[in-house]
């Protein structure tokens, strides 16, 4: 159950895996993404509502064959240049897109968590997306005859989350903005969670968000594992880093050399963070 990050990726993430790193702005599992890059995984089917910097890095480093997503930008800043380069110029390789709206993708994750083959929404009216994505279809209400949109369930081979806490049994507690993380977790075949802290006892939970230990395949103690995203109660989002990323990722050369120096060149996440801290001071 409790593994090192390197072992968790080694054991559970193979080339070709369909893989969701979830967390909506908050608790994005950057450390896990970096370890996947270090371990040189290829042909991944990446799934994430908002690809964010972590998928920009993985796509730019050639890990991805396909992307299921609903909004691919640098939040509050602008483009994801590596995603754009892959779509516009097939660099470093072509990438297949399975493109949704947030509502459609949330519905697909819910269907996945419920192990239903599809989900239903009032959505995609008057948009061109269904023309471009055969995964968006129509269904008729058997009671009212009304047409509605249907999307197929998303069931990743592996979902990776970052969370604040796990206990020694592997129960995982998440606090703050959750996005579709619960549904992505419960929809997956295998669930890996990196956490800020391993504690003897989780805080009293009543209706808090807890993933019970028996749905978790691996827990990885990985403090700082969501940086430059954030972990509510532990550290804040490094908005300045998100802004700096725009310049780093704009050109292939600057991107590659930053990744080589900071991610590939660091043996683990602690070294990655130490390197950034040194650069700042």
């Amino acid at each position, binding site marked *: 159950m409790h593994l*090192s*990050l390197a072992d968790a990726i080694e054991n559970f993430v193979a080339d070709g895996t369909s893989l969701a790193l979830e967390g*909506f*702005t*908050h608790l994005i599992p950057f450390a896990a993404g970096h370890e996947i890059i270090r371990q040189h995984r290829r042909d991944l089917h990446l799934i994430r*509502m*908002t690809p964010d910097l972590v998928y920009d890095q993985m796509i730019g480093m050639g890990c991805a064959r396909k992307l299921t997503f*609903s*909004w691919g*930008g640098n*939040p*509050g*800043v602008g*483009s994801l240049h590596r995603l*754009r380069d892959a*779509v*516009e110029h097939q660099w470093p390789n072509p990438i297949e897109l399975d*493109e949704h*709206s*947030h*509502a*459609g993708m*949330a*519905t697909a*994750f*819910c269907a996945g968590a419920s192990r239903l083959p599809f989900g239903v*929404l*009032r*959505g*995609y*009216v*008057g*948009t*061109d*997306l269904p023309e471009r994505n055969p995964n968006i279809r129509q269904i008729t209400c058997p009671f009212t005859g009304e047409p509605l949109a249907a999307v197929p369930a998303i069931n990743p081979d592996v979902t990776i989350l970052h969370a604040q806490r796990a206990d020694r049994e592997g129960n995982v507690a998440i606090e*703050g*903005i*959750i*996005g*579709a993380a*619960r549904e992505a977790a419960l929809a997956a075949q295998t669930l890996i969670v990196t956490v800020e802290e391993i504690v003897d006892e989780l805080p009293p939970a009543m209706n808090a968000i807890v993933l019970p230990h028996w749905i978790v395949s691996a827990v990885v103690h990985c*403090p*700082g594992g969501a*940086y430059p995203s*954030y972990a*509510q109660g532990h*550290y*804040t*989002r490094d*908005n*300045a*880093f*998100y*802004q700096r990323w725009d310049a780093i990722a704009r050109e292939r050369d600057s991107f590659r050399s930053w990744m080589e120096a900071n991610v590939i060149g660091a043996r*683990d*996440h*602690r070294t990655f*963070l*130490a390197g950034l801290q040194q650069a*700042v001071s």
Partner: protein
Amino acid sequence: MSDCTRDEWMTIAASRLLENRAVCFVGIGLPSAACNLARLTHAPGIVLIYESGTIGTRPEVLPLSIGDGELAETAACVISLPEVFSYYLQAGRVDVGFLGAAQIDRFGNLNSTVIGSYDAPTTRLPGAGGAPEIAHHAKQVFVMAKASPRSFVEQLDFRTSAGYLDGHGARARAGASGGGPRAVITDVGMLAPHPETQELQLVALYADASVDEARAAIGWPLRVADHLDTIAAPTAHELNTLRALEARTREAHARPVHIPLPAEGLP
């Protein structure tokens, strides 16, 4: 207050459209500034929802992203994204949705997906996000965008979210439940749909702008409403509140962030 910028004036004009106690689905950037300005001036009871699941937030400073910790800490509650989209937006509980876009056409349809063709775009944009269903379900939609012939176009490269489709009631016939774009707030003036054709026309100008300036910035032959309003200049209170909010925001975002380096011995 003649020393204000058009960005400020735009934000203030948009904030004035928001009624007290309105439930707003807020996007990042100008809409976030307009909604929070409304909350800090004439609409203290406004309910702000960000798609990150933060309901009834009252941030001290403007968030950079849609999911900054500030939004969660000041929210009445934080719910999951599927709940936001199903139980709130789709359920018709949102009065006002704000949208921006790379391209808008004369019927208020929006493109935030690609410039060029979908399969081989010249520019790949971020994509749909919450827009298609905000456009569909919000009782009314406000669009905020700077006007230029490149963005206010005759023909969208891709239709990401529906305004009035081809106008003349096409939107209602397609089964969209919300009311569609009621106002488009630009830096040259405000556009609104013609009651019958639903084509966007110029309905109001900033005091220092002209119809010619507006026409030059819009990529289709812009019609002017029979009655053309003037957008009142910002009051001192509006402008001071907005500038204080933005100053707080700049200061907060400039504050150096602590890199969460674990102690030696931890992984």
